[in-house]
């Protein structure tokens, strides 16, 4: 390390405009957790309306107008923004921005990311995008209300969409800068001895994720530009000829196609699903290896499966579009690729399950979340198969079944993985452990209420309840037999919110009063645990790192301890 590393920094340089990957990672983490909470809040308002239609919403009712009743326009707004915020402002920045930034350089033994300033630019671009999304609520027209998918022609005419598109351009830019940085960092800054197959699985997951972001996001940026042109310059890329809107023929040139948007959108948005899930799988892999005290089963097959998964995720997008009439040949192709892509997911999940076999499992809080991830993601994944086959998708498309399916993947799946990561790496970030008691108080109710929310969605969806009903199906013939579930799901959602209180208390209490720990409290093997807790600012390690071992050498026969760190000969 050169000697310019110890110049004094003022508060702004140190905590706000820092270029240290650890500070940026924490900035990402804090911002995205707040957005997650906000997005959850939007959904709770909607759930109130679904359970008790057209009754004043308690607490926040005053914000919704004089009556306090959630009006349909606002319901649509909340729905669109819930999806947008959860995905683009909550989970991706937490999974990639926060964990990727903080952990990847540490795990490969690097002093920082390859381009520290670009890294800060990526965070601030995300921040600006987030601010634009939030301010859109206060615009005279309100926020976007065409769903997070923004399908035209609706999105061309609905108000609020322009701000959404501009916000998305910033968020996409942020992802591009960030993921470029990850790829270069992982290729170039691996410590001596850290060969590709000595990389922890988490790094592999982030590496593939970064490629997905770099290659899949630009087409959405292209689509956003085209949609912006449609809205601002009155082109008709997504508007067919002779389109009638509100009883009048739309005065545009026409000959465009709404399907074009769907293709461009899902070309991003399907890989995006794997952007959401892969980092969580990476975290779960780390936590399982550490808490089973044995090597991750089938490390190489995990890596190959992840790379294959990343590749395949680019050629499955049109399985979101079976009902658009794009044709049998297209449907057949995308059904086939969709069935194929389930194989690597199953390989990964199976490897995790087998890793548990014969292990002496430590039921720490991170391990509980990681263990819960497995069946929850399993349910989410398996319920996706009927949606990937055209014939069954005809019945299930756009019903609550779909909502149940992807929420199982993302909520008790990814978010549990991310919670596991927070509990697991909190000691590294702060030098203190989080409370186990509060952690378990957080975990068990969360697990129960997550299922309370999403399991009934399968029942409603199979009955045929459409996903976008403002009244929760009161006036909908198919919904009459399954209406009673609405209240059950909503109460579960409110209880889930209550179950997050121990987590919030835990973070703040443990930050100042948690049990102090040394650099390796979990007895882990990967490189980040050989750095001090928290790691040295702007350098991470006290001395140069060298790597001698594979990532998961737990319980090596003949070794003194039950773990052999990568940095020890």
């Amino acid at each position: 390390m050169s000697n310019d590393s110890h110049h004094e920094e003022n508060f702004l340089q140190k905590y706000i405009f820092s270029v240290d990957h650890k500070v940026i990672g924490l900035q990402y983490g804090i911002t995205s957790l707040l957005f997650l909470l906000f997005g959850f809040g939007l959904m709770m308002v909607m759930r109130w309306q679904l359970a008790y239609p057209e009754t004043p919403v308690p607490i926040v009712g005053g914000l919704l107008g004089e009556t306090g009743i959630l009006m349909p326009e606002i319901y649509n707004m909340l729905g669109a923004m819930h999806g947008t915020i959860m995905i683009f402002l909550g989970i991706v920045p937490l999974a990639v921005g926060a964990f990727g930034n903080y952990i990847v350089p540490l795990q490969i033994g690097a002093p920082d990311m390859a381009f520290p300033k670009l890294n800060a630019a990526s965070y601030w671009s995300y921040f600006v995008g987030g601010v634009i999304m939030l301010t859109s609520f206060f615009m005279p027209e309100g926020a976007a209300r065409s769903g997070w998918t923004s399908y035209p022609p609706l999105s061309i005419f609905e108000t609020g969409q322009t701000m959404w598109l501009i916000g998305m351009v910033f968020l996409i830019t942020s992802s591009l800068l960030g993921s470029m940085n990850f790829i270069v960092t992982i290729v170039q800054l691996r410590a001596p001895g850290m060969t590709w197959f000595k990389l922890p699985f988490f790094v592999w997951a982030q590496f593939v994720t970064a490629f997905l972001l770099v290659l899949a996001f630009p087409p959405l940026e292209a689509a956003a530009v085209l949609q912006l042109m449609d809205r601002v310059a009155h082109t008709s890329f997504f508007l067919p000829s002779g389109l009638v809107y509100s009883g009048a023929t739309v005065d545009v040139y026409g000959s465009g196609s709404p399907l074009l948007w769907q293709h461009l959108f899902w070309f991003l948005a399907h890989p995006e699903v794997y952007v959401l899930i892969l980092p969580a799988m990476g975290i779960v892999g780390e936590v399982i290896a550490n808490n089973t005290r044995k090597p991750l089963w089938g490390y190489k097959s995990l890596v190959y499966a992840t790379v294959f998964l990343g590749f395949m995720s680019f050629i499955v997008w049109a399985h979101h579009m079976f009902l658009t009439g794009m044709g049998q040949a297209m449907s057949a192709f995308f059904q086939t690729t969709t069935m194929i892509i389930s194989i690597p997911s199953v390989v990964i999940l199976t490897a995790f399950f087998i890793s548990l076999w014969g292990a002496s499992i430590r039921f720490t809080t991170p391990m509980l979340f990681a263990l819960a991830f497995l069946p929850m993601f399993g349910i989410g994944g398996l319920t996706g198969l009927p949606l990937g086959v055209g014939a069954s998708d005809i019945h299930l498309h756009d019903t609550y079944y779909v909502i149940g399916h992807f929420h199982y993947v993302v909520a008790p799946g990814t978010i549990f993985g991310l919670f596991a990561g927070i509990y697991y790496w909190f000691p590294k970030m702060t030098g203190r452990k989080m409370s186990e008691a509060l952690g378990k108080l957080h975990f068990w109710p969360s697990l129960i209420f997550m299922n309370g929310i999403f399991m009934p969605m399968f029942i409603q969806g199979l009955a045929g309840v459409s996903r976008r009903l403002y009244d929760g199906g009161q006036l909908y013939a198919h919904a009459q037999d399954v209406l009673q579930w609405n209240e059950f799901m909503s109460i579960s959602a409110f209880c889930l919110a209550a179950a997050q209180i121990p987590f919030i208390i835990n973070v703040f209490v443990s930050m100042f009063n948690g049990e102090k720990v040394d650099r390796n409290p979990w007895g882990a093997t990967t490189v980040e645990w050989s750095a001090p807790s928290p790691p040295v600012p702007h350098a991470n390690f006290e001395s140069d790192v060298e790597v001698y071992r594979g990532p998961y050498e737990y319980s090596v026969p003949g070794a003194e301890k039950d773990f052999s760190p990568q940095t020890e000969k």
Partner: protein
Amino acid sequence: MQIPYTIEERPDTGLNNSKLGIWVFLASEVMLFGGLFSAYVFLRMAAPIGDFAYWGSKLSIPMATVNTLVLISSSVTVIMSWASLKMKDFEKYKMYMGLTLLCALIFLVIKYFEYTGKFHHGIYPSSSTFMGIYFTLTGLHGLHIIGGMIVMGYFWLPFGNKMWQSDPERFTNRIEVAGLYWHFVDLVWIFLFPILYLL
């Protein structure tokens, strides 16, 4: 703190960070313009027969041909500027980089006359789907030109002299990376020219 391999190459990958970075960035740019080119194909297939050709005939092929030559020349001069730095000839670098910036400016001026010519005839992006995609593609390409000019202009102005004096190798790498980006912008135009003007 010093990030490894910012200037020197990492032995096992044979790359420095910025060169890998720009290639990854260009990969994402390929996907951006790839998305737009696919949109072009999709829209052309969806349009009534002859519609794209009819509106395409309103564009000025001579102007675009000159612009093509101008951009190709700028790609040559940007290489020459990098080669001059490799040969430690900073004065020549200044000249060639200046020529590159001049070419970029000429390109934009011609583009400006093309655009205003269309507006004078009452042709706007909303006039037809072809015109919409024409203005979108060339507009986005123009923004890339401006972006490149900002970066290369920064290296051409006195800031560049200082960087050259303090760390010549790093400065040379910077020009190389900027040049790679510039070639890409040029290449996009090479695709835009036939599909918009000639087809």
